[in-house]
């Protein structure tokens, strides 16, 4: 007995992307989501705004699958970056140009622009890799296609020209600190890029391989946008779109167990006691939750060990400050909510903040990215703080939360001196909160660390890199699969393509 052609566990961006792909190819699909709304980690919220506040890498192919076509792009507003400096000489970065707030150019020799151009060139290359399953994971049948793809990628490398190609092959392996400081003085611009490279990561700017993360972040050409009507509205759009595609959605119900018979998936048992039957299950939760749902007796011992060894330390917290009124910024032209505010005055500062995290503390001088959000008649300042360990020494009690908020407010007061008086309410959402609410170990931004030993064919583990895991019919479609996290949707899309191919 079969209820659906496929069941998707988890309705985050990747679950949505997978479901829409399958459904647009005529499959009947249901999404099972334990939260009351779809959107997953990105849309996670308590009283205040959602966890994610910006769109880095939203993939046009995903949007197209959803049948949203071009309309959604009218709904996006591009966002400028303000680098907050203690000296008061804040810098605005707009379309890879950098200016002081009074309009003077910062980047007088153009080296920042050159650097960001180089990054977007690399981004184009990586994007091609992101839009497909990793090389070498194809089953025998399709390996010629795989080789062709490899050749095509080789060609696009070659087309960079000899010297650019050499540079690429070195740059992509470097640590972001060296990469930046070779061309830029250490200061707010280098700080900004090193913060962007390490956001969501358990690695500091001096860790080899972090240039890859920076390229990943700028994968779609250094363009940074936010949904004009807010993140909640954006996810509403997506939900309406999948409903139009006839995807069934069950929210507020946990998938407890993946039913397996004779080493093949038969369906999913839900917390309400019902079972949904299907021969194909795509799971977008963290791998550890997947392991629990499958039961270790159905996994190879080597796979169980790889899952245990997966590095999933979460390092991002969200602090939402509810303000009595908007502070006034005389120097900032244009709407204040079209900017993000970065506190990362130098690479050294970012590296220092990371150091604390290694030993189970958060830094007293944190790296943060903040945006102003208006909801109904409320004003929120919503911040992502980097290098906040899920495994905090002493645990995440009320005092620790309060302390994290104070540390943030203090570091922002260089920019908003009156901030403390404006706060009427606040909430601190720790990596552990994300982990508990979402079934994502450690509350990691990408579900598992994006380091060179956990990407491409090695993502999430070498044996699972073809989106397949364990018993027949079980697929992985969350961020822990290639290419990884952000509101991007490619992990889900790639997984769905794999399902379609295998069930043809």
């Amino acid at each position, binding site marked *: 007995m079969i209820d659906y052609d496929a069941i998707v566990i988890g309705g985050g961006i990747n679950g949505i992307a997978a479901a829409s792909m399958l459904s647009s190819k005529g499959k009947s699909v249901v999404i099972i989501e334990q939260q009351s709304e779809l959107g997953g980690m990105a849309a996670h919220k308590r009283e205040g705004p959602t966890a994610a506040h910006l769109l880095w890498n939203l993939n046009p192919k995903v949007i197209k699958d959803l049948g949203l076509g071009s309309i959604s792009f009218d709904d996006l507003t591009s966002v400028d970056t303000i680098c907050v400096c203690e000296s008061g000489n804040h810098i605005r970065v707009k379309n890879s140009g950098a200016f002081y707030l009074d309009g003077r150019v910062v980047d007088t020799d153009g080296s920042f622009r050159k650097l960001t151009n180089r990054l977007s060139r690399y981004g184009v290359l990586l994007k091609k890799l992101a839009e497909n399953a990793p090389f070498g994971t194809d089953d025998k049948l399709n390996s010629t296609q795989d080789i062709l793809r490899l050749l095509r990628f080789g060609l696009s490398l070659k087309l960079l020209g000899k010297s650019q190609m050499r540079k690429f*092959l070195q740059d992509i*392996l470097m640590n972001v600190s060296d990469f930046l400081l*070779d061309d830029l003085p250490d200061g707010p611009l280098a700080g900004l890029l090193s913060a962007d490279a390490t956001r969501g990561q358990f690695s500091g700017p001096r860790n080899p391989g972090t240039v890859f993360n920076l390229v990943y972040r700028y994968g779609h050409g250094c363009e940074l946008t936010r949904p004009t009507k807010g993140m909640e509205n954006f996810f509403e759009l997506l939900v309406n779109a999948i409903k139009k595609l006839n995807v069934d959605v069950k929210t507020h119900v946990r998938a407890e167990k993946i039913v397996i018979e004779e080493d093949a998936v038969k369906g999913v048992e839900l917390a309400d006691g019902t079972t949904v039957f299907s021969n194909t299950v795509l799971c977008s939760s963290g791998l550890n939750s997947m392991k629990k749902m499958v039961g270790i007796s159905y996994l190879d011992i080597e796979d169980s060990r790889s899952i245990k*060894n997966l590095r999933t330390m979460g390092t991002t917290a969200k602090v939402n400050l509810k303000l009595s009124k908007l502070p006034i910024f005389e120097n900032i032209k244009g709407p204040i909510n079209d900017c993000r505010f970065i506190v990362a005055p130098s690479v050294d500062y970012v590296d220092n903040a990371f*150091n604390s995290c*290694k030993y189970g503390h958060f830094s007293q001088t944190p790296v943060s990215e903040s945006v102003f959000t208006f909801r109904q008649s409320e004003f929120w300042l919503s911040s992502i703080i980097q290098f906040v360990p899920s495994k905090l020494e002493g645990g995440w009690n009320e005092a620790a939360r309060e302390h994290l908020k104070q540390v943030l407010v203090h570091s922002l007061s260089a920019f908003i001196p009156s901030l403390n008086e404006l706060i009427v309410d606040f909430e601190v959402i720790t990596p552990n909160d994300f982990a508990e609410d979402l079934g994502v170990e450690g509350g990691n931004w990408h579900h598992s660390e994006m380091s060179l*030993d956990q990407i491409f064919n*090695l993502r999430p583990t070498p044996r699972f890199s073809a989106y397949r895991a364990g018993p027949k019919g079980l697929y992985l479609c969350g961020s822990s699969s290639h290419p990884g996290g952000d509101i991007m949707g490619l992990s889900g899309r790639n997984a769905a393509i794999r399902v379609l191919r295998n069930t043809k």
Partner: protein
Amino acid sequence: MEAKKSFDAIVVGAGHNGLVAGAYLARAGMEVLIVEKNDWIGGAAVSRSLNEGWTYSNCSYVCSLFRREIARDLELPKYGLQIIPYEGGASFTRDGNYLAYYSDHYALRREISRFSARDADAYQRYATAVMRQCRFIRPFLLRNAPDPTSVRPRDLSEMAFLIKRGYELGTKELQDTMRFWTMSIGDFLDEHFENDLLKAHLAGSGIIGTGLGVYSPGTAYVLLHHYMGDIDGGIGAWGFARGGMGAISEALENSFKHHNGRLQKGSGIDQFIIKNGKVKGVALENGDEFYAPLVISNMDVKRTFLNHVKTEALPEDFKKAVKRFKIRGSSAKLNISLKGFPKFPSAPQNASFLRGDMHCTESLLELEKAYDQWKAGEWSANPYVDMLIPSQIDPTMAPKGDHMMTVFVQYAPYELKVGNSRSAEHWTAERCKALSESVLDQISIACPNIRSHIEHMEVRSPLEIEKEVGLTEGNIFQGELTFDQLFFNRPIPGYSDYSSPVKGLYICGSSTHPGGGVMGAPGANAARTILQTQSKNMHMTGYAS
């Protein structure tokens, strides 16, 4: 008699790689001159007597990486080289315990189970994994790295070899290999073991000589770099060169001279003589000039091109790439003349592991903190020490009854931070003394009486190593071993074939593939490349060809 001025080839620097390159070229029939700035040879593979009766291996101190193919080709045993393996080692703890490391599999298993039965089992898996990586990498050491952007037959055939080796591994092993190469040693050990002391003991090899911490990606490779050698086929085993590491250089010198090589010591080169984009010879600091159509530099890539080549002779891009090459000083060293043999109270009398490498670090976090201090421009308050007393096995190192101790110290920055300024100039005599006190404190964990046995001590800061050996920043590998600076990226993308934009000018030091350590491979690879491309009637013969 007018001294000879013209040669077929000149090697600049008598470090072991320069000597290897010189010896191969001389064997092939070239007239070769080696010029060395110091009054002695060997570079960082040197033995000197700074305190009468005692011999120090002043820089490098243990041998394993040296390619046996080279030792055979150049007949080093015939010219006096003997490598004596040592077995085992230990890590001592503050509370009077220790973990001993034995090369005997069963003894090691028993010892590890004293701390954790689970880890004793895991060690099997760990050793297999590391050994597999060693086997994979070893054939690449005596080959050139292909330039992936080039379609020259040489590069294509090396590329084909690489792909073939990778393909032979099969998908799973290839993925494991890729993972291993990009991992941190801390994560790799955490995957296998639960005991902190064991992890700390094994992790040392992943950070020696590098400006990286145990949790920095790429350090698993650095560990491999220390394990991929062998002694008489015992992969991963280490030993002492009888007479100190200088014995390797001496044997090389003898082999070189036997084939009519000429060595000129005591004056370094001032400039490479370059005309119309071609190298013509070298001009020494003492005013002498020597000429040859081939000049091979044993100095690191920065020193070679930024200090001794006129800047007009090099394209801008190349100079920029050389400037970007990372050579970071992160190590210091103590060489100690001991009166008598100091007591190690926690170890049994005459324990075999006292003849091996000893450490006093108890956890990976302690190592990571040591690294953080280095990043901040300080030397580590609790440094990682790798100490050995070779005179127990090699009696030539110290008077009878007395001993020589070599202590390698990780981390010490080149640019020391004092107040708000960072500069190598801060390495004054007092600060070297203070550094040695920190190190002796650390050693006291294992050997509380160490201070009362000290007869003489040489303290080597990164600055001092740089000044004497010419290793930029005192970096022991002539350049960081991070993956952006390995294989075809070493030293400069596009120049991994030992050549340079100046015709006839080559480099053969540890800045080149496959990198640092007393290995000889860069020298041999450079010699082979030169003979292949520059000479029609001379060939490299032997195992390394």
